[in-house]
């Protein structure tokens, strides 16, 4: 039987554990901390197709959306607060609406359901009056990420997987022929494995170096504002059309684009800022003020609502904004599954499927096909490519 060690018990590692145990693989999940203690617990639980243009990431998002619905059936959608609530992307200017309409046209050609909305207040009565238009994406969904990670991991444990918390991985252990035979932990133990899955999220770059198969994954900080609990006043994931530009941007400075959504608990979450400041956790009051101002511009009623708190996290980004998923030829046995930036929750279920295919051999590095763009080779310099 194949034995896999998954490094990271965030949403991606947990989804991989569920997918692998479903296929009969023996799984050990290790995390230096607890379930969902990294970026998984710092986001909003987006499962979006709306912010993705045609390409590999959209294909993965569509695969992942279907996989999430199956996960929902397996676990029970209400247990993980999986809601097919739909997204509403709102333009705030005529020019913005034209750009949004062009973007949506491309998405429709790729199979996304994107519905033009002349009067956004019909779908979201609390939106500001006079907004020029919007696009409704009924396929967008929401999930509670920590509940989902815990439920996926629990499903894997029920099938015989084991989970070790407080376990820091220091190196890959390799046979004489260079192939992987396990991993070494900080307390000196060796966990034997045929395959190691690097699902370490924002820390995936550091872990990949320890495994001898480095991939570039860097942190992109974001803040989320949390309001006091309210009756359901925001029905969809509502965001400004600027958001799509910011997600794909490579600007190092602060970017903000408003995302507003209600949660089952009644709080309203307001994002999303993007900054490249390393792992600096300092609260930035100007960022909070900017996000709040943008949210009030979309939903004027928020001006009278109290904020309870602000949290922050670090999105794991690769230089080309695509996740790195697949076997690493430099260390046979290492499979990466990290670098999903702000889309990790949404892409997790599909990532689990791909990793499952790679581990069982149903898909290989050579037969990656439409997923070849996600392979780790793309980062290799000229000298490494010749090896």
């Amino acid at each position: 039987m194949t034995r896999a060690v998954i490094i990271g018990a965030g949403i991606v590692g947990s989804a991989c554990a569920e997918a692998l145990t479903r296929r009969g693989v023996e799984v050990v999940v290790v995390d230096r901390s607890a379930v969902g203690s990294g970026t998984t617990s710092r986001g909003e639980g987006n499962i979006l197709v709306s912010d993705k243009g045609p390409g590999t990431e959209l294909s993965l998002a569509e695969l992942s959306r279907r996989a999430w619905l199956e996960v929902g059936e397996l676990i029970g959608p209400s247990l993980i607060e999986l809601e097919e609530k739909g997204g509403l992307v709102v333009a705030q200017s005529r020019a913005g609406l034209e750009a949004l309409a062009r973007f949506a046209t491309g998405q429709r050609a790729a199979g996304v359901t994107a519905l033009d909305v002349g009067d956004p207040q019909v779908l979201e009565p609390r939106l500001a009056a006079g907004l020029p238009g919007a696009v409704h994406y009924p396929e967008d969904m929401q999930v509670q990420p920590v509940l989902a990670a815990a439920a996926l991991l629990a499903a894997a444990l029920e099938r015989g997987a084991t989970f070790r918390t407080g376990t820091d991985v220091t190196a890959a252990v390799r046979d004489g022929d260079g192939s992987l035979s396990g991993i070494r932990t900080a307390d000196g133990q060796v966990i034997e494995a045929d395959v190691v899955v690097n699902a370490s999220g924002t820390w995936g770059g550091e872990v990949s170096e320890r495994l001898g198969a480095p991939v570039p994954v860097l942190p992109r900080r974001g803040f989320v504002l949390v309001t006091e609990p309210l009756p359901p006043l925001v029905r969809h994931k509502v965001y400004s059309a600027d958001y799509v530009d910011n997600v794909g941007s490579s600007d190092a400075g602060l970017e903000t684009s408003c995302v507003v959504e209600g949660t089952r608990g009644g709080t309203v979450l307001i994002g999303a800022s993007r900054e490249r400041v390393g792992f600096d956790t300092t609260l930035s009051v100007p960022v909070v003020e900017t996000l709040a101002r943008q949210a009030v511009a979309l939903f004027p009623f928020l001006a009278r609502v109290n904020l309870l708190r602000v949290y922050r996290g670090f999105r794991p980004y690769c230089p080309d904004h695509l996740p790195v998923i697949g076997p690493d030829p430099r260390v046979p046995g290492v499979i990466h599954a990290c670098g999903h930036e702000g889309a990790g929750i949404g892409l997790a279920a599909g990532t689990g499927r791909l990793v499952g295919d790679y581990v069982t051999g149903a898909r290989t590095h050579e037969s990656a096909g439409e997923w070849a763009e996600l392979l780790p080779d793309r980062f290799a310099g000229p000298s490494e490519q010749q090896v």
Partner: protein
Amino acid sequence: MSTFEFDGAGIEFRPGQTIGAALVAAGQVSWRTTRVGGVRRGLFCGIGICFDCLVTVEGEPNQRACLVVAEPGLTVTTQEGTGHEHD
């Protein structure tokens, strides 16, 4: 002693005392109901972290009773659910 009004009744307080402390001292241990189950709630952590002791002060819902300092003549009312049901 000064008093503030809680659901129509006078509650005495000492200078600097919070609304939550004064209510508990007066024997009142709950002043809101939860959003889903309608269960009664009062002080839990008492230091501003847990948001369990929410109360409506001068018509403004979701004030933490453990942090708001009592003032003479304040109108404090039991909060039902989110306190925003009228919105």
